[in-house]
């Protein structure tokens, strides 16, 4: 039996690769006369049977009966109150969350809190501890923060202590959401809405033991999706969790995987059944470009290179920075992946670890080491990240409804250009420092469309803000293209930019080096994309726009940002997006099928 735990994590690009890796495994096992069956475990998603089938290529039987004793659960939505009558700024959500944790611990409850970023986990921990000390609670030192980047032994220690009950509260990132048995606790505090409903329910489900009542609290940030949920709790409770979608037959992914398979054992006609209907066409492409060679109906890998070394299953980097404490004999105290490193341990940053403040003396980019020393300061730091998109080359261009739509190679770049010092507690900004750090880039394929000046003017004439219209369409397209191409919404990114074409342009690109054909499909199917967006907009029961239609479907996962510093921006206007889409697609209800 091959067991696949946390199956729902294998979605999008990653899942599509893994599905093929499983087919390769089965193929090799079969060659040596071995067979196996699968057991797959998943968090609650909309389509567990479908995903299991997609991953394994076999029929799956869904066992979804939960026989565990379950007590009543109270789900509380907690919106921090406004600071004053101007009704602009709300009380700190980290502060509110930490007070809730402290009160619960003081009343003898065991608590797990989930934050949206690593820095937030550290901050909430600091504040919760201060609150407990203020309450003169004797359990003040029985709470800990927990996040990725701690050393494995430190993490294991915290998990054990939480499980045994020695710890009364752990303030974690989503690192504790999956795969780790922490037992059942009395309360789960979600500080900020997780990016998906599936993960919200997963986090809330950490509370509730053996039939006893439990509580889950969602503390909202003053930010778009959170505030929408506070106004529309029915949205949270009424929708089924997201589906996890894969596309094992994506030609780009399949080409990489078939190359690896050919290296393992030559591919024959039989393998078309295993790897799907695209197999033959993709093999032709591999053969035609000389990657494989076929003899007697069997395709062989035709190079001295080791193909699997060139295939990255995930979109994230495997590189890490070590964080070294120069006061403790240069011991490594933590790690951070190379992409986040430049947003976390840049020179003069304050690195938070276990709630304590460390000053970054030096960041060695070559050796990938950050040298830090403990330093008592009253502030933390936040990176100021600048993002940019550049067209490298136009691959194709088409006229469509009076607009020019283009497909091409783009470079998406981001760079930490400065840091901001923020005072603990009050969130006051106490200064900026410019920084000189390398720019990180993603070279990929994207499509873009800059509405013509006539279209732009027409949106305005219909009483809508064209910028909002374009932002709404970008969000709709990101969601709908991910559905059309069977990738995860986070495998795509959309940005608005005026610097390339000299007028506002909507860019949509694949979040994978070199691209995986999502934008290419969008480019070939703009008609459908527009019709589907209009259809979706009309079908959405909301009045003025919501996270399901024109709202922000995907936020760039900002591991190193404190969401407490963000300000709620309105969901782009639904009417504006509709105005733009109707200019492009005038016949009411015209939907391409």
């Amino acid at each position: 039996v091959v067991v696949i735990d946390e199956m729902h994590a294998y979605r999008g690009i990653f899942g599509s690769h893994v599905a093929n890796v499983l087919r390769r495994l089965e193929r090799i096992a079969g060659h040596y006369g071995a067979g196996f069956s699968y057991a797959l475990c998943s968090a609650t998603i909309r389509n567990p049977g479908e995903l299991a089938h997609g991953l394994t290529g076999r029929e799956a039987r869904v066992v979804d009966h939960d026989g565990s004793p379950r007590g009543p659960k109270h789900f509380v939505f907690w919106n921090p109150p406004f600071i004053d009558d101007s009704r602009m700024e709300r009380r700190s959500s980290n502060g509110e969350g930490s007070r809730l944790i402290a009160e619960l611990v003081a009343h003898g409850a065991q608590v797990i809190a989930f934050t949206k970023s690593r820095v937030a986990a550290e901050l909430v921990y600091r504040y919760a501890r201060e609150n407990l000390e203020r309450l003169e609670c004797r359990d003040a030192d029985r709470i800990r923060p927990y996040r990725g980047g701690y050393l494995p032994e430190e993490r294991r220690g915290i998990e054990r202590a939480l499980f045994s009950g020695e710890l009364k509260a752990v303030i974690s990132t989503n690192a504790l959401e999956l795969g780790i048995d922490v037992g059942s606790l009395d309360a789960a505090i979600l500080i900020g809405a997780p990016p998906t409903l599936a993960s919200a329910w997963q986090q809330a489900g950490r509370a509730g033991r053996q039939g006893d009542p439990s509580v889950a609290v969602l503390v909202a940030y003053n930010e778009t999706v959170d505030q929408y949920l506070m106004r529309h709790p029915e949205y949270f409770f009424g929708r089924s969790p997201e589906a996890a979608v894969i596309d094992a037959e994506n030609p780009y992914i399949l080409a990489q995987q078939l190359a690896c398979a050919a290296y393992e054992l030559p591919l024959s006609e039989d393998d078309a059944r295993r790897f799907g209907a695209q197999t033959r066409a993709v093999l032709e492409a591999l053969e035609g470009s000389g990657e494989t060679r076929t003899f007697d109906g069997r395709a062989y890998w035709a190079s001295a290179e080791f193909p699997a070394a060139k295939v990255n299953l995930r979109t994230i980097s495997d590189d890490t920075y070590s964080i070294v404490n120069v006061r403790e004999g240069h011991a490594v105290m933590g790690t951070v992946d190379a992409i986040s490193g430049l947003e976390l341990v840049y020179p003069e940053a304050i690195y938070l670890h276990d709630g304590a403040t460390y000053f970054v003396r030096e960041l060695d980019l070559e050796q990938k080491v950050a040298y830090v020393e403990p330093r008592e300061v009253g502030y933390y730091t936040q990176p100021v990240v600048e993002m940019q998109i550049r067209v490298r080359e136009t691959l194709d261009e088409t006229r469509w409804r009076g607009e020019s739509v283009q497909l091409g190679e783009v470079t998406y770049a981001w760079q930490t250009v400065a840091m901001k010092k923020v005072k603990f507690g009050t969130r006051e900004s106490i200064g900026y420092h410019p920084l000189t750090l390398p720019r990180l880039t993603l070279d990929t394929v994207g499509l873009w469309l800059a509405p013509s000046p006539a279209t732009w003017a027409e949106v305005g004439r219909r009483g809508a803000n064209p910028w909002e219209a374009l932002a709404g369409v970008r969000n709709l397209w990101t969601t709908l293209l991910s559905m059309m191409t069977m990738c995860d919404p986070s495998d795509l990114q959309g940005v608005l930019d005026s610097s390339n074409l000299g007028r506002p342009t909507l860019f949509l690109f694949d979040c994978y080096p070199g691209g995986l054909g999502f934008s290419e499909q969008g480019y070939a199917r703009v008609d459908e994309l527009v019709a589907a967006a209009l259809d979706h907009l009309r079908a959405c029961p909301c009045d003025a726009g919501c996270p399901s239609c024109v709202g922000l479907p995907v936020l760039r996962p900002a591991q190193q940002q404190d969401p407490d510093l963000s300000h709620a921006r309105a969901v782009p206007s639904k009417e504006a997006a509709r105005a733009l889409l109707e200019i492009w697609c005038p016949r009411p209800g015209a939907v391409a099928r």
Partner: protein
Amino acid sequence: MIGGAELRARLGALARSRRAGLPLDVPTPARVEARSPHAVGVEAYLPGGEWRDERGAVFVHERLRSQIERPRADWHRLGVPPEQEEGLRALCELELARVLFLDLETGGFAGSPVFLAGTMRWNGTDFVLRQYFARHYGEEAALLRALAEESRGFDALVSFNGKSYDVPFLRDRARVHAVRLTVPELHLDLLHPARRRWRGCWMDCRLQTLELHVCRRRRTGDVPSDEVPGLYHDFVRRGDPYRLIPVFHHNLLDVITMHEILKALCGPAGRDLPARRPRLEDYDPPSIALTLR
């Protein structure tokens, strides 16, 4: 990412024409017929024939060592190995005709194909050099079967680094192709006694270093080992034998040199040791080259 611009262009066309979730509705292009790798084969340059069984064939090139270099009367006399070298002693107790020398050339990392297996055996008057060559990837299984058949008749195997490389590689490939392959139980890997004898004498103990200093022979027109896999894949792709011929040469000399090293190891220690680190200009070693017909 695997592949270059050409592959990306082909996949891009597929991606654009594709409707996710539905089987691709474009006509399947005609299967690319592999150009026959036999069209411009190696036969024209390396005399030999085919080894064949009911499942396939492999090219075999065979020649006598005396066709390559002047025969020496003491070729078959190994001498008396040092007391402490048990492996050498065990080997010397056998008749030389019971010993098979072996060296492989492969397509790259573990998991890639074996394409050339060079063997050498003593026929009582001369050494017979035989090279099994897979003209394309599909002939690897036949190569392994042919080699299995040949090696069955021997009591001992001699290799250079074969315990770490050639034999595990061969076993691995035999398992993939379900070929029953037994190598002689007695396997003398010359690398280890060579290290014991000559460690520190020269810059390293690689075969070609020993060839230069122990056999006092310099190669001409040889291919560096790390270029060998690429040359083979190029040959399969393009069918042009000119650049592959030196690989046969390389493999042949490796096998011959093994025998020379074996003889040196069985000879008295000391005579072969330099008084000081030798320089190349100290002697002008005769070169050995494979002549083409």
